[in-house]
């Protein structure tokens, strides 16, 4: 039922409390959304699950406790991660960036190149010179190379042109048929289209858990939790 179960996750960075107890369940199918305002703690939650920041509490992937493991072992359990700041290596070429991400014996380059033909074309270009959107493609492409059990995408469509957003949304939808996805996203239209369950964070805590469609339909709740009305497509979220 739940693939990833997070309980009472807490993060303290350099003396400041960033997370005060986050609970989160990621279903073993489809897309689970993680929502919240800027600074609510979404990225920190994701990083804590991956062991990229010091944390306490529990995070279980298919029943296996992750918090005792170093990041690389957590990831080897089959997690694909699209970081918020894209995390491409500017000094390496596109091909090298992808090569680094290879974990499986037979990485699925056809899928990546089909979705982002641009990356095939720019194989030898230094990733640092890519446009913002192209870098985002590298970041997403990396997770698609390997057969993963879970994909965590932190604002994957940020900076992508509308047409590509639509394509990525399609791709995520397709991927989610096989692999569950934890999606952090500000683009509520996209969330509405993809996500089943959702968790909303506020001030480093879980503020709400439920069904995405229900939340977005519940005008007062959405306004309280996300600060936006939902009766019309919110301004700024195409």
């Amino acid at each position, binding site marked *: 039922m739940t693939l990833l179960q997070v309980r009472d996750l807490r993060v303290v960075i350099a003396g400041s409390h960033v997370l005060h107890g986050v609970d989160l369940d990621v279903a073993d199918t489809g897309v689970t959304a993680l929502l919240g305002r800027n600074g609510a703690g979404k990225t920190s939650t994701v990083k804590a699950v*991956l*062991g*990229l920041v010091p944390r306490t509490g529990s995070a279980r992937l298919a029943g296996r406790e992750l918090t005792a493991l*170093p*990041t*690389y072992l957590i*990831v*080897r359990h089959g*997690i694909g*991660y699209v*970081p918020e700041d894209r*995390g491409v*290596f*500017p*000094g*390496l070429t596109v091909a*090298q960036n992808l*090569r*680094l*991400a290879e*974990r499986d014996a037979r990485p699925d380059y056809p899928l990546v190149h089909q979705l982002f033909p641009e990356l095939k074309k720019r194989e030898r270009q230094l990733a640092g010179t890519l446009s913002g959107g192209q870098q985002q493609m590298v970041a997403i492409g*990396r997770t698609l190379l390997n057969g993963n059990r879970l994909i965590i995408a932190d604002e994957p469509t940020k900076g992508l042109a509308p047409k590509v957003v639509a394509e990525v949304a399609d791709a995520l939808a397709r991927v989610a048929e096989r692999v569950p996805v934890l999606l952090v996203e500000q683009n509520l239209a996209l969330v509405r289209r993809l996500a089943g369950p959702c968790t909303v964070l506020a001030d480093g805590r879980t503020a709400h858990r439920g069904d995405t469609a229900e939340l977005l339909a519940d005008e007062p709740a959405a306004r309280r939790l996300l600060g936006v009305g939902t009766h019309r497509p919110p301004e700024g979220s195409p």
Partner: protein
Amino acid sequence: MGTFVLLACTGLGLGALYFLIAAGLSLIFGLMDVLNLAHGALLSVGGYAAWWAATGGGMSCWLAVPFGTAVGTLAAVLLELALVRPLYGRPREQILATVGVGLAVPALLAGLWGADARPFPQPAVLAGTVRLLGAVVPRDRFLLIAAALLVLLALRLFLARTRYGLIVRAGVADRAMVTALGIDVRRAFTLVFAIGGAAAALGGALAGLYFGSVSPDQGPGLLIFAFVVVVMGGAGSVTGAAVASVVVGLVQQFANYYSAAGLGDLAVVVLLAVLLLVRPGGLTGRLA
């Protein structure tokens, strides 16, 4: 003609020595971004271990040099695990710690075997000279050149055939992200550091052969030129370092011989300054 050939051959030999010393430095500095000021100490460890094996341990020279390399590699691994590993991403403190090791190890060697140079036994095969186009060239220069070529080839293969070069370079730029790709960065760093250390120790052992002696501050003394070579070649580019070594060796040898006051060293540093001012990326153009 004879003089020219002699200068060219010995210049190449010197370049080979510089490359042997610089190769490890280039790897560690260029890929890992660690300004390893303990590199000289690794050289000394390699040199002394080989010397000890050849004199006290009774090994033949052909065994002593690999033995020295092995000991130096071990020392590099220990150094990385104990000292450098906790300090990635803290370059200033890396400098402090590696300077510390760079001071302590030669001092320790001086304490153990005295501050003076110790003769390094030379196998008879290497002791002689070769007549070449009117020049009398010492044989050991050719050994150095061969060793340098081998090291160059090995490093290039290592970087081309494995992902380690990529991992370490990426790890320097964003360590967390590399681990988030499921890669054990720490192991890759240790491995690359060990390879750099092995190259250094080999350089140290062969330097003992070259100088005919080992002394505690031989390693640190050669380090400046190794740094020059690394920077000239463009950090992280092993081939660049090889080219730069040859350039530096030749320039130094010719300038020493032909300029009135033997200005080889000065010529090299001036060359470095000019090169960097004109091409900040070094010979290979990779941003240093």
